[in-house]
């Protein structure tokens, strides 16, 4: 059973990766947009006395990661719906969530390209010597970041499929995450009442721990572990919610016969 599911996840991932790797919108979201955001932010912030290039680069890479998660995940199921293949996938013995998980892994893998590309490009264009102060902690934090974005991707994917009307709000959801998660500037600039919203967003903790481990010389390891814990718990919550949403989607679709494109 596990082996069969893993096989489906792997096949869905490879198949989806082949589809999105040549998509110009994906290339823009993962490569061009983070690079332009980073360039703009560098020119805006570089005269600050406490300017840290690595802070901006990580922040802009996270913008690419979130934009990728948002836009690619929301089309995970809706793409099949448009193509007329959703009925076939749902009717197959494999659970829909396995196929979506495979696609999510491909999306997250693609979006991670924004991190891999932002660093060398920024170093090349601006001549920055980008040094990560705590490489081991940073690497482990990156793994937690991947976990959080996979869970978030599943949540976005299931939510956008249950609520078809939500798709028109996609563009309006992109920048609020940049703001509330403090990707490019600290959330202390925002009104105090938005802070609780930031706390329930895993990307906020991801940005915090990545910035912390990359920039700060003296950090509390206990604090880093605590943030990893927050990310893990939030990722679990996102997975539970998305599992519930998948159930709602399938029940609703079978009861109302709404699997096909509406």
């Amino acid at each position: 059973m596990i082996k069969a599911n893993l096989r489906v996840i792997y096949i869905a991932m490879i198949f989806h990766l082949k589809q999105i790797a040549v998509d110009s919108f994906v290339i823009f979201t993962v490569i061009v947009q983070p690079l332009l955001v980073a360039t703009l932010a560098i020119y805006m912030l570089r005269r600050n006395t406490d300017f840290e290039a690595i802070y901006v680069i990580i922040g802009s890479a996270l913008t690419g990661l979130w934009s990728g998660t948002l836009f690619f995940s929301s089309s995970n199921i809706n793409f099949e719906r448009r193509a007329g293949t959703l009925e076939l996938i749902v009717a197959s013995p494999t659970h829909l969530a396995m196929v979506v998980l495979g696609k999510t892994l491909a999306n997250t893998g693609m979006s991670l390209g924004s991190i891999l590309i932002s660093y060398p490009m920024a170093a090349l264009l601006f001549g920055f010597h980008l040094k990560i102060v705590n490489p081991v902690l940073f690497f482990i934090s990156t793994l937690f970041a991947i976990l959080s974005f996979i869970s978030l991707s599943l949540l976005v994917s299931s939510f956008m499929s249950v609520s078809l009307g939500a798709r028109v709000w996609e563009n309006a959801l992109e920048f609020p995450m940049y703001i509330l998660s403090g990707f490019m500037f600290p959330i202390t600039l925002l009104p105090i009442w938005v802070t609780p919203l930031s706390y329930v967003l895993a990307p906020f903790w991801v940005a915090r721990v990545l910035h912390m481990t990359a920039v700060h010389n003296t950090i509390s390891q206990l604090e880093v572990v605590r943030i990893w814990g927050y990310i893990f718990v939030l990722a679990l919550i996102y997975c539970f919610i998305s599992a519930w949403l998948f159930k709602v989607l399938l029940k609703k679709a079978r009861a109302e016969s709404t699997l096909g494109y509406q």
Partner: protein
Amino acid sequence: MKNLVASTRIFLSSAWLSYVALLYWTQPITYLASHVAAPFTYILFFSYLGISATGSDTAKFYLIGNALHLCSLNGIYGVTMAIGNERDAGTLVYLVASPSNRLIVFLGRTFFNIIDGVITVSLGLAWSMFLGLDLTGANWSGIFLTILITTISTCGLGLLLGSVSFLSLNVLFVNNTVFFLLLLFSGANLPADSMPTWMQAVGSLLPLTRGIKATRLLADGAQINEVLPLLFGEMAVGAIYGIAGYAVIHSLENIARKRGSLDAY
């Protein structure tokens, strides 16, 4: 006289049909999401980024710059959609085969985008005022004129970008890139003195740059005659892009006919 009536009819029908049939955001919810909520978040993000760079005293600079930049939503995406969506709808071949004057048709396609662009920027300024932008003493009629001219000039650039639809399906990639390049080069977020000379030179070749500069001056109470050179410059840049767009559409149309790529996917 007969030609004038026919041209006016084609202009108006082209304007109306392109707006109701080719733009995705004409439904109220879609409009609310793409022209009210999303622009608000753009303004919020870039203004906070600017404030984190230069302090809250400079918020006005970023709020005005980003509100004006919103006209590129219509100028770039709207105008391009009004041409490119013909291809998606499979009707580009009919448009090319029709005997209508191409210039009138494409000018018609920009018409509602100009009106919509002015409304979007006005909403952006209203949002900015909600966020604390103080426009006491601003020259409102001058600002309105500047918004109108800047939106028209950005539509000129949109016409040029829309021409890509004749050859490629990757128009969205080009649009998205230019949208962000305008943020970078137009001075919406960067004061001229913080840009290298080459970036200032690129900015001077783009629409929006002079419009944003003029709006900032008018917001501080400048008279219209003080910003006239900027407004004429903005109009000239827009006209050059518009003419270039028309010329490129014309030549690409011929290439697409020869390649048979008008409705290729």
